[in-house]
């Protein structure tokens, strides 16, 4: 067992444990904050698998963007000063059906995929990713940017509309 | 107001340039923000090389004028016991107990040449309640109570700030007060009082002030001040 194996085990365990906590924690803010560790664990796993750009992107997008949005959402609810914001779990059995099928699918995928055993040497991936995005997958890349711009414009429109009403 | 401001070397009015074009206005705003920040930085930069205005307090002290009103001080030898300071004090912090000497008793002469007519049996000032208004100083006929520029008299408890300036110990005070009362009672009985034993001159055995305050036992600077 070398250093890499220990690291993979440690971060994998961290990811799984914190993800479990996200799911089962009664307090919604605890869930949100433990997502931080999940994201970090995943980022660390990417890093060990020599996908350093992906790891940093994971942190910058999920931690710097999405997680803050989630926490903001929780904090912006009416009772932010109340520390005991609890989460209720309802209709577990109905939820079990889709979640269980997805989980089963993922497990089958893991079992029947031919995973490469040897790790690739630590090579810079940034340039490759950039070239692939701008040459090979340019249509997908541009399409997603159009989507994002549409979302931005929509958000601005929604925000403006509410302001105009307030002025009247 | 414009002429006044030009006289002071200030800009007549700090009119910023404005423009109808929003883009030019934006550039002007950004430039003004940047420029005024630089002006402010220039002011603080010049101050980096200036001599500090403050002094390193316990090592060097600012010159306190000798008329500064920092603490009430009583020169008990001069006090004639007229109670003027007690009457004028707005906070009522001065407590004076006087007693008439019994017949035949001579209390001597005060340093200012006046005869000492009364025992100052007690002269207590509660410094913790003092207003530092200096009214007591202005009404005293004998310059016995005055303000001194001594501002360092921190104590560990409020009781230590209640200081008795009289030279009489509590027992002596009770004795002279009782004697005066006895003589008064005797006079009212229109009988010549029995001469009492002569009160010894208070000078030889000077009792220390009755309150153990290190600060107040120290020699206080006089009104002329030994302050730097």
């Amino acid at each position, binding site marked *: 067992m070398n250093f890499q194996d220990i690291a993979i085990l440690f971060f994998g365990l961290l990811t799984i444990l914190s993800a479990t906590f996200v799911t089962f924690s009664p307090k919604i803010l605890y869930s949100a904050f433990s997502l931080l560790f999940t994201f970090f664990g995943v980022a660390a796993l990417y890093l060990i698998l020599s996908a350093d750009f992906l790891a940093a992107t994971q942190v910058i997008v999920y931690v710097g963007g999405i997680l803050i949005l989630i926490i903001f959402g929780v904090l912006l609810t009416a009772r932010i*000063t109340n520390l005991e914001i609890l989460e209720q779990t309802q209709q577990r059995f109905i939820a079990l059906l889709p979640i269980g099928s997805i989980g089963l699918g993922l497990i089958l995928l893991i079992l029947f995929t031919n995973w490469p055993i040897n790790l690739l040497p630590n090579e810079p991936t940034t340039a490759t990713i950039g070239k692939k995005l701008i040459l090979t997958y340019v249509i997908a890349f541009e399409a997603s940017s159009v989507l994002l711009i549409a979302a931005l414009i929509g958000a601005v429109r929604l925000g403006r509309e509410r302001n105009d009403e307030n002025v009247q | 107001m414009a002429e006044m401001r030009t006289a002071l070397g200030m800009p007549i009015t700090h009119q910023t340039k404005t423009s109808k074009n929003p883009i030019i206005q934006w550039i002007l705003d950004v430039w003004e923000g940047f420029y*005024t920040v630089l002006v402010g930085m220039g002011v603080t930069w010049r101050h980096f090389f200036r001599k500090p205005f403050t002094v390193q307090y316990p090592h060097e002290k600012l010159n306190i004028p000798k008329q*500064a009103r920092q603490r009430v001080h009583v020169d008990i030898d001069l006090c004639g016991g007229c109670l003027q300071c007690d009457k004028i004090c707005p906070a009522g912090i001065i407590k004076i107990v006087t007693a008439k000497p019994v017949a035949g008793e001579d209390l001597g002469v005060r340093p200012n040449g006046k005869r000492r007519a009364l025992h100052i049996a007690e002269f207590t000032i509660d410094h913790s309640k003092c*207003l530092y208004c200096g009214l007591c100083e202005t009404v005293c006929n004998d310059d016995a109570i005055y303000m001194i520029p001594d501002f360092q008299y921190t104590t560990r408890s409020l009781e230590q700030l209640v200081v008795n300036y009289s030279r009489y110990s509590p027992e002596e005070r009770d004795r002279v007060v009782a004697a005066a009362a006895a003589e008064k009672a005797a006079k009212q009985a229109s009988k010549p009082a029995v001469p009492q034993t002569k009160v010894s001159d208070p000078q030889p055995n000077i009792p220390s002030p009755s309150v153990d305050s290190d600060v107040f036992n120290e020699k206080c600077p006089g009104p002329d001040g030994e302050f730097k």
Partner: protein
Amino acid sequence: MPLQEIEIPLGIRTPNTDGIVGEAMVLNMGPQHPSTHGVLRIELHTDGEVVFEAIPHLGYLHRCFEKICEGLPYNQIVPYTDRLDYLASMNMNLGYVLAVEKLMNIEVGERVQRLRVVMAELNRIASHLVALGTFGLDIGATTPFLYCFRDREKILDLFEKACGARLLYNYIWIGGLARDVDENWINECIEFLDYFEPKIKEYNDLLSFNKIFIERTANIGVLPPEVAIAYGCTGPTLRASGVKWDLRKDEPYSGYEKYDFNICVGEGEKGTIGDCWDRYWVRVLEMVESVKIVRQALDNIPQEDISAKIPKNFNKMPVGDVYFRTETPRGEIGFYIMSDGTKTPYRIKVRSPAFCNLSVLPVLARDQLIADLVAIVGSIDIVLGEVDR
């Protein structure tokens, strides 16, 4: 605008946006908070960062000034008036003393009058320096505060040389002054004025014309003149709204009619008339005017006995009542004294400027950000010793 049209806040509003009645967050600003200038507590009802209701709660510094006065002879009240507005004690002394002199029909001499004006105006500069510095501190600039205090220190040194105290002077007495000043002091005073005038440019460079400062204060907390008058605002708070009202000019006392000075009013140079920047700027300009007055008052000051008119006792006071108002750095202070002929007043009522100016805070603070509320509280420049008395 007629008075009825002015909206006076009644009750506590609740935030109402888009039909959703939000829950107000009640925030207690004070009594221990870095920017409430003393022990003032402001109850803030906020919706996010927006304050939609600010309710000042007073009384943390109440010392029963008016009741204490009923048990004291007239001359012993003077040290207590020091403690009203402890940043402008000379002006407080002057207001009370002039009221008693009006009651007793005392006319003081020229030198006493002039020295009183000198002291009051120097104290006005000192008080405005504190107002400027703490206002800068509220906006977040620490350095101007220290510069202001550095210059105020020099004024306090002058006061200490004149009367022995740095903050609570008990200098202006009924019928005279506590001590006379010598030629040396007058020279030092003029020296100070020469030193002080160029310093105003420093404050302006550092604070007044700084873009960030202007952005923070211009168009914030606009006090229209009608509202200011309706709420009884006085002093720089009123003048910044463009109302030319200064008792030193309009009801001259203590010889103010002899001096040549301007009443500084807000002109809305950076934003609207009556905004925080105007209130700040009026104070800066008033310091310049005060310097002018002090120079005129010290010019060829006559020699005379300053204690000639001081009454020996107050046993034979005229019966009746008297009201006298003077202009302090914060506005009009009015002393209403009822005398029943004894040596203690029957009743003293103080109309204090900071109290009246503070009453307009709920109007100004409506729908402002918390950061703006801090600027507004700083710009109306309250002293809690005088608000609570």
